[in-house]
């Protein structure tokens, strides 16, 4: 079986086809790109159907020798967590292409280049979640930066090149710290029975606790920059403000998930003891992120920056769920990653349409959109409700699981984090009120409502948000075994629930 390789090849083939389309026929270019992403999404769904939910081992495993002298393999395989994230990425891709149909026109380069970059990025998004060889993961982790860099710098708005450089420098710095850790792993594996980068084999390495702590930090800082965790988050608002909405969806929705995914897949698996050592510190950072992100979101005047700060708060929840070391917390964190992908996509895409219609991203410039453009306003409202985790929306389930999972072991953190929910209500309801309700701000009277293409793009996102809000079981059944497996491997058992009657 080599279905994962095939899945990775599909977007590449698509990108070649895109490159071959005539320059004058931009519609054809977009259609080819859309068709490719749809095919990839369908293929992923087919794969998800064949996935054995209760099997905690890696599935769809494949392995080819790549650089034998360093023990590097092109090795892929997915567990429930990876499957969910790949599913999220490939389902988001066609939505992004369809929603951002005209995004590439303001760019420095042609429309073709935009879609080639998007498709190459899609291949890497699949690969980064599917890699089971640490070196392969690192290669994709770093190589992914290049298309994103050009997407932000070439097609964004405002201070796009500065934002792109900031993004790249932060990420490269983190990546190089990780490289130092990977080099140490490489040498240690060589001393303990032959060079290898196989994740399972590396997790068996013997190392002193000091070494483990340093190597853990190398990985963790790289992931914390990516995720982004306070105080390493400062690149994100700039990048999100400058990037096109579609790029922002891929950046915040998918790429940043590599950070939280990496914490589980690499930090916890490779360095279980160090993870336990650093847990108190990381939990504090996570709680700060939750509250800090929420406060700053309230203060934002720019719609895109607001969404970026809400994400910092949400990534705080995800990180807290991961390091709470309970199976609910874990499942909640993974589900949160999936849900955050869609609710952020909804916010960015609808926000992007509002901005492009109004020609401004300042929240105060909107007002009374409910009357002028009801469909757009309702979509934004629903996206906002999902972001503040209203019961009935998918985010509620995951946020609740994270809080429950954290409370059983770290009640104080969970209680403080709960304030994040209250603040979330503020940061969403204030812009909703300003932008959608009240009298129509002069200049907005003639804004057009969503057209058919935009409706088709946003409908599945909102459908998924609501469907999973009421019935998250299909995903949780895939995630739970994987989460329980990770927690058990770490040597944790869930604390018994306590109640006030005792």
């Amino acid at each position, binding site marked *: 079986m080599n279905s994962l390789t095939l899945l990775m090849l599909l977007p590449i083939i698509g990108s070649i086809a895109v490159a071959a389309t005539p320059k004058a026929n931009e519609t054809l270019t977009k259609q080819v790109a859309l068709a490719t992403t749809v095919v990839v999404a369908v293929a992923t769904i087919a794969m998800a159907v064949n996935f054995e939910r209760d099997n905690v081992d890696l599935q769809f495993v494949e392995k080819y020798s*790549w650089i034998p002298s360093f023990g590097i393999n092109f090795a892929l395989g997915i567990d429930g967590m990876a499957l969910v994230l790949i599913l999220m990425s490939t389902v988001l891709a066609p939505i992004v292409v369809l929603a951002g149909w005209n995004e590439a026109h303001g760019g420095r380069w042609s429309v073709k280049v935009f879609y080639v970059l998007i498709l190459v990025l899609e291949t890497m998004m699949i690969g980064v979640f599917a890699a089971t060889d640490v070196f392969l993961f690192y290669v994709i982790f770093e190589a992914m930066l290049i298309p994103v860099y050009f997407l932000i710098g070439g097609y964004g708005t405002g201070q796009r090149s500065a934002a792109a450089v900031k993004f790249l420098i932060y990420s490269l710095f983190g990546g190089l710290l990780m490289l130092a850790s990977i080099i140490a792993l490489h040498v240690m594996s060589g001393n303990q029975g032959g060079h290898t980068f196989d994740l399972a084999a590396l997790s068996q390495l013997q190392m002193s606790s000091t070494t483990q702590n340093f190597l853990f930090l190398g990985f963790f800082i790289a992931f914390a920059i990516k995720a982004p965790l306070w105080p390493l988050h400062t690149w994100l608002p700039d990048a999100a403000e400058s990037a096109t909405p579609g790029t922002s969806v891929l950046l915040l929705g998918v790429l940043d998930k590599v950070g939280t995914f990496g914490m589980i897949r690499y930090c916890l698996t490779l360095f279980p003891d160090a993870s336990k050592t650093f847990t108190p510190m990381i939990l504090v950072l996570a709680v700060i992120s939750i509250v800090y992100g929420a406060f700053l979101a309230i203060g934002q005047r720019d719609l895109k920056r607001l969404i970026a700060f809400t994400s910092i708060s949400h990534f705080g929840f995800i990180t807290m769920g991961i390091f709470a070391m309970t199976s609910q917390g874990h499942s909640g964190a993974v589900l949160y990653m999936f849900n955050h992908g869609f609710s952020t996509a909804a916010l960015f895409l609808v926000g992007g349409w509002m901005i492009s219609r109004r020609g401004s991203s300042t929240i105060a410039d909107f007002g009374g959109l409910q009357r002028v453009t009801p469909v757009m306003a309702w979509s934004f409202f629903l996206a906002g409700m999902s972001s503040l985790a209203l019961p009935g929306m998918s985010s509620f389930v995951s946020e609740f699981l994270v809080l429950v999972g954290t409370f059983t072991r770290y009640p104080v953190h969970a209680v403080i984090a709960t304030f994040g929910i209250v603040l979330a209500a503020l940061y969403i309801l204030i812009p909703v009120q300003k932008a959608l309700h009240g009298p129509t701000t002069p200049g907005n009277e003639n804004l057009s409502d969503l057209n058919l293409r935009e409706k088709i793009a946003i409908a599945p996102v909102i459908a998924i948000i609501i469907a999973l809000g009421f019935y998250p079981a299909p995903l949780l059944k895939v995630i739970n075994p994987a989460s329980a497996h990770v927690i058990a491997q770490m040597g944790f058992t869930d604390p018994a629930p306590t109640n006030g009657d005792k």
Partner: protein
Amino acid sequence: MEFVAPVLNYTLLSPMLILLGGALIGVLVEAFVSKALRPITQLSITLGSLVLALVQVWRIRNEQSMTAAMGSVIIDGPAVLMQASIIIISIISVFLIADTEHFTALAAALPGSDEERHALQTGNQVTEVYPLTLFAVAGMLLFPISSDLITLFVALEMLSLPLYLMAGLSRRRRLASQEAALKYFLLGAFSSAFFLFGAAFLYGYSSSITFAGIRNAVVGGAGNDVFLLIGIAFLSVGLLFKVGAFPFHAWSPDVYQGAPTPVTAFMAAATKVAAFGAMLRIFYTSFANAQWSWSPMLVVIAIVTMLFGSLVAIAQRDVKRMLAYSSIAHAGFLLSGVIALNKAGLEASIFYLFAYGVATVGGFAIVTLVRDSAGEVTDLNRWKGLGKRSPWVATAFAIFLLSFAGIPLTSGFIGKFAIFSAAYENGATSVVIAGVLSSAIAAFFYIRVIVLMFFTDPVEDGTSVEIPSGLTSIAVIFSLVITIALGVFPAPVLNFISDLATFIR
């Protein structure tokens, strides 16, 4: 005293002999062939002898010999690998050198004199750069296979003297070019003196000038250690000067900037392979058992070199100077391969040297293309918007820069990973950490150039990109293919290196 005729193994020495023969024919061509036919004749001879030499190197790849030239040279796996790298890099460089536009018509004429103008107007272009290149390459081939200090010194001078001349051949800004040549020559002579001084001390220590003899003395431990330490220190000065490591780097930015760009490319890439080749051999064989005498010194030099090169490169506004400081930083990275002192370190160094050399030639090839009416434009501010005007040229340059920065899927990344792993294996953690940090610093200025090219609007100042001539295109494409291939599928080359890379002693 009875005269013993020297016994030479001509097959094993043939790569150098072919090049020297080609160079001598080139001198004759310069004297006797008409000026119309000269460029093409010289180019064919040069390329022909380089290719022939490469074929010869390939044929002797599995040979091992310590007696090929009466014990003066060693032919072994690393020797073959170094020689092959030098020849391949030289071939790519020759494609650039073939563009006579860069070279003064009459090097002997005073800058700005009537004679010079006359030579230029009548198209009386001399082509002595070809034989000079071949002489230098022959010296470079000898350098890493020398097995005694005298041969090593002869090779050092043999590769340096033509380079001093070549640095002064630029057609534009001839005074700067001549200043560069003079500076290179004076400092080079100075470092040669240090080198000889060190050799004398090593002779005093071991009463031998051969590497094997020095090694035996070090292993035996009977000699005067002070002599050994002074000898190693002074010899290192000579070698570190050639590779451009801190604090012996001062010549390189000026020379890189002043020399004609094809010569800079050749010098930066090929000299580094040769000098590191010799350095690896002498430190891995003769001085291996005195590791604790020199390793701390090299660790400090490596760390300072990496950080210094990366930090100072940030402040550069000239693309050639920036590449010069970047090459200083790379010298620091390469020193960690010497410090590693294990088989992994040797393999990694050879891979790194080849990958870096090829990318360097490719990078300078791009520099030769960006011109205005007065010649090359090296001011980075005028590279703004290059990606808009000539996207392929800018993309190629970006890929070379990404390789220098060590971004995955380029050869630079594999090299960096390999060389730092080897250094870490030997416990040189500090070097690895400094290397990673300076890579992060270095990434900043490489990316800044990419930003300038792609994300800044072009300024209308008459800067244009020359449509690459056929030969320059070959050089760029060749370098590009190697840079990407070694980044994506390095396994065949790594295996080839791994099979051969063992020094015989």
